[in-house]
């Protein structure tokens, strides 16, 4: 019965394709006049009937199909001059438009990149657009502007800890966020134990976060999709920009290879915290290494007016070493080859071949004894997507996606020069195939209703070539199963319906509602209090089942004062199945049958998110507030009753203000406050093996203290040359020096051995920073 409904629904939807008569399309690209960069989300509307229109897609492409006639089109992008063009539609027309930045842009900071009232009309909800220009004005730790830290100031997104770039969305764990860089999933988006993200904001064009209600082209994670697009590179003029900061420097080069046709972009960043170590006379310090670097590269080539080819890559590496004794290096590498093709005025396709790799290598040496620990997760990913602009009221997306995952867990090898020491057996490799087909439509019904609906069918094949285990309820291995390479161990099939709708009550008020099912087959096992490069990714197996989340949300959206102010209020309720937690005393590191250490259960998360934003003017910024709970229920934890998840916290407030004092100075301030996360503390102590041990009565039964902090920044625009621009950026992190608890530990008192005491560690008091940025 259920299947029949789906089929008939599909039939009705596809019927839209069939009745296009005496209609023609106008299509093309909308570009920045100065750099030739395609603009994402620029609006194309009819002057006489502004509700008829479309937005450019993620490649700057638009298509509008209208009845035969003469139309005046308005091209808009905030911060850019409006362009008006008249077009006679008696045949299909191709129309590329270049629009220039407005002069006032220089003295005003603009927050939204989209059409002024886009937030009201679009069916999508739970979406946060991050303007990269914005990110630059917001004060951050070490002055290192960072997209992942900026999104933590938005409602429904929570910081994973002091200075951390890891984040939680709507009660989900860090691994439940799909982070894409030019379509390539990034498995570890952190540098330097989480204090920096892998995204160099100089290389980034656009970032969008969707909080659980993603349209069907996205899948694979429960909580959110963070879709980050790299700049294309200026195809008009050569340009360079860069920055010199206290702990890192960066350089960005871009320019045309062939003017108007092709361009390149190369961005690099390196930290030099270890340079300070070298200055030290202390051989215990100057012997150590600690740095990371990032490289982003992109080449973009117009093969013809209908074909474009993009190649983009990211390579980043962290290196950490203590003399010759211990070293770890880790990093991501991603590569995307993408071909855009315009089949006709209404059909656009995108084919991508994507590679993604994360690995770490640990070296331990003592005299002649050497051990290496290596781990890798490698993806090959093929994506095919079609976008069909059926008419101004319907735009379709459909396609498929196949990913091959290859996971090598932390294998230990003995490379001792004297041949001593044990040989270690390899841990089982895991291979799997994650596929999906999907179709979705964005549909406008009348002037008031907009719908976005679709289906995603996800199929996960657990592949053989290694041993799998049967496990009893206590976590003991009862059977070892040997599967040949290429055989299928287990297949999981999930159908994921997605629906969101917006109903416009008045031109400035709308109501929205959404439902989405998401599934997840890649799971991160982490049981330490900080982000670690050695946190272990596992795929679904015969024991680990796909995680499933169903999220319902409703929202109220209103703009005030000619779209200067935006208010949004969203509420959500999410249920989750097959959530992973750990058995008491779980060993997740060197463990072949890691499933024996895991427990499975369900989760629920609900909350209310409020955002009030001022988008333009000399003073702008936002206030965000989140009220939320996130709970889990597993047999074997807290007697099977509901308990708060690690990321559970009740209140989160963020206030962000940016003020353009005069053409030279821009000031920024942020203040954040949140109540404590759930945490496990002891409720007693006892003595065993001549040690004081803590007695725990329940998991996550306590709360960390509340956190708050204020940061300030000031940007000073230095004298401008004809082409040369430069600025000095100052910031202070944690201005009033609040000692926020990074961790709370328990120990025998140092002053009175008959007592025990509680010790709080705070990481950062005031942290000033200065950086110099230039552009020519």
């Amino acid at each position: 019965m259920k299947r029949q409904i789906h089929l008939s629904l599909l039939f009705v939807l596809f019927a839209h394709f069939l009745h296009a008569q005496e209609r023609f399309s106008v299509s093309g690209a909308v570009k920045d006049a100065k750099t030739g960069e395609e603009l994402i989300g620029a609006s194309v509307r009819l002057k006489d009937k502004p509700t008829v229109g479309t937005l450019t897609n993620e490649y700057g492409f638009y298509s509008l199909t209208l009845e035969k006639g003469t139309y005046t089109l308005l091209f808009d992008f905030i911060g850019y001059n409006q362009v008006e063009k008249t077009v006679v539609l008696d045949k299909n027309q191709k129309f590329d438009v270049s629009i220039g930045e407005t002069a006032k842009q220089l003295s005003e900071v603009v927050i939204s990149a989209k059409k002024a009232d886009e937030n009201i009309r679009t069916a999508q909800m739970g979406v946060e657009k991050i303007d990269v220009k914005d990110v630059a004005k917001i004060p951050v730790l070490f002055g290192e502007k960072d997209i992942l830290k900026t999104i933590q100031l938005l409602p429904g997104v929570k910081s994973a800890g002091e200075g951390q770039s890891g984040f939680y969305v709507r009660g989900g764990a860090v691994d439940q966020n799909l982070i894409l860089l030019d379509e390539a999933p990034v498995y570890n988006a952190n540098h330097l134990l989480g204090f920096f993200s892998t995204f160099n904001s100089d290389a980034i064009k656009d970032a969008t976060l969707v909080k659980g209600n993603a349209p069907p082209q996205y899948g694979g994670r429960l909580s959110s999709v963070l879709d980050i697009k790299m700049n294309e590179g200026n195809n008009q003029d050569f340009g360079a920009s860069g920055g010199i900061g206290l702990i890192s420097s960066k350089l960005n080069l871009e320019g045309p290879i062939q003017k108007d046709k092709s361009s390149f972009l190369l961005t690099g960043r390196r930290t030099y915290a270890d340079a300070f170590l070298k200055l030290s006379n202390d051989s215990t310090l100057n012997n150590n290494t600690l740095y990371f670097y990032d490289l982003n590269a992109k080449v973009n080539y117009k093969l013809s007016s209908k074909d474009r080819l993009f190649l983009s890559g990211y390579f980043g590496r962290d290196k950490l070493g203590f003399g010759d004794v211990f070293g770890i290096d880790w990093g991501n590498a991603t590569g995307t080859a993408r071909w855009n093709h315009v089949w006709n005025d209404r059909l656009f396709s995108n084919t991508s071949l994507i590679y993604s790799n994360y690995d770490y290598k640990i070296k331990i040496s003592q005299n002649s004894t050497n051990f290496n620990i290596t781990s890798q997760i490698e993806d090959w990913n093929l994506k095919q997507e079609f976008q069909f602009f059926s008419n101004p009221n319907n735009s379709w997306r459909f396609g498929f996606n196949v990913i091959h995952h290859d996971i090598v867990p932390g294998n230990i090898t003995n490379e001792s020069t004297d041949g001593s020491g044990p040989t270690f057996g390899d841990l089982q490799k895991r291979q799997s195939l994650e596929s999906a087909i999907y179709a979705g439509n964005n549909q406008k019904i009348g002037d008031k209703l907009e719908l976005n609906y679709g289906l995603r069918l996800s199929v996960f094949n657990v592949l053989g070539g290694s041993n799998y285990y049967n496990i009893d309820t206590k976590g003991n291995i009862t059977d070892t199963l040997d599967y040949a390479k290429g055989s299928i161990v287990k297949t999981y099939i999930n159908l994921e319906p997605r629906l969101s709708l917006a109903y416009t009550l008045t031109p400035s008020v709308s109501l929205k509602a959404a439902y989405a099912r998401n599934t997840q087959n890649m799971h991160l096992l982490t049981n330490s209090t900080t982000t670690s490069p050695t946190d272990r990714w596992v795929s679904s197996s015969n024991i680990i089942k796909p995680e499933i989340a169903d999220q319902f949300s409703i929202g109220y959206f209103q703009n005030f004062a000619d779209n200067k102010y935006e208010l949004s209020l969203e509420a959500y309720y999410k249920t989750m199945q097959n959530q992973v937690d750990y058995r008491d005393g779980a060993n997740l590191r060197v463990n072949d049958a890691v499933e024996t250490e895991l427990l499975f259960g369900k989760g629920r998360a609900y909350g209310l998110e409020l955002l009030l934003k001022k988008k333009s003017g000399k003073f702008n910024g936002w206030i965000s507030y989140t009220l939320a709970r996130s709970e889990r229920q597993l047999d074997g934890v807290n007697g099977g009753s509901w308990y708060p998840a690690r990321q559970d916290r009740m209140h989160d407030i963020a206030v962000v203000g940016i003020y353009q004092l005069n053409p030279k100075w821009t000031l920024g301030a942020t203040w954040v406050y949140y109540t404590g996360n759930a945490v496990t503390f002891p409720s007693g102590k006892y003595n065993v093996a001549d040690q004081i041990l803590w007695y725990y009565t329940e998991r996550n039964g306590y709360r960390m203290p509340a956190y708050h902090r204020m940061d300030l920044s000031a940007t000073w625009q230095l004298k401008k040359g004809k082409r040369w621009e430069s600025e000095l950026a100052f910031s202070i992190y944690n201005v009033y020096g609040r000692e926020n608890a990074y961790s709370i530990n328990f120990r025998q008192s140092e002053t009175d051995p008959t007592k025990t005491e509680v010790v709080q560690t705070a990481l950062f008091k005031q942290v000033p920073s200065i950086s110099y940025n230039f552009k020519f």
Partner: protein
Amino acid sequence: MNKLAIFLAASTLLLSSCEKVIELDLNNSDPQIVVEAWLSDDPSERAQVWLSQSVNFDQSNTYPPLSNATVFIKNRTTGEVDTLKEVGNSGIYGGSKLVAQVGQTYDLTVNVKGKTLTSSATVPRKVNLDSIRLTRTTFFGNENLQIVPRYLDPKGIGDNYRFVLSVNGNKKTDLLIQNDALSDGAYNARPLFGRMGDNDIKIGDTLSLEMRCIDAGSYFYFDTLSEGGGGPNSSSATPTNPVSNIKGGALGYFSVYTKQVKSTIVK
């Protein structure tokens, strides 16, 4: 990892993290029975059972002994039962005639505070400790002495070892364990890695290392103790009580083992 993170943030970014003792209102809990019981193959040591209770966090570090319990151990293979007697009112029960025999299973029964606590453990095969080797490494400027117990692990997974270190005759509290899950049948080259307490060993000190081949249940107890917390310096996000091999509602463990000792002088 916690400490490492703090070190990195602090020293390499030229900042200092700050630690302070705070007042935290921790919950009280009902006193829990704590059992520490062992039986060795050393006739001079034999069996001992220590019974005590947990206290609240803010109380002083004295753990009330549990007196007037009935404690007996039965050799399941021979049927021999031996009752352990309390020494004064110390909560320490001993005076057993039993000596652990390789391959035999022992059942512990404790009746205390109206509860019956039971546990069983089988004495594993004995592995010969050939010698101890000392190596030096420099880590953060501190020269550390590492102790490598030299023994040949026999083929077949399931050999579990616990080591007890004494320096100049003083027993150290470090919890030192190894097993053969990843190095079955290999000659051991792994140094002992203490996760609790600390060592400061000087040239001229006499080290003696006791190797115990312990039963699987108590190994799991010590392993979950060092992994999951329960002890100081835990950085686990979900610290838990170690998994006890005692049934009936108690904290602690019952361990049966063979033991041997090697000594060396630090040069």
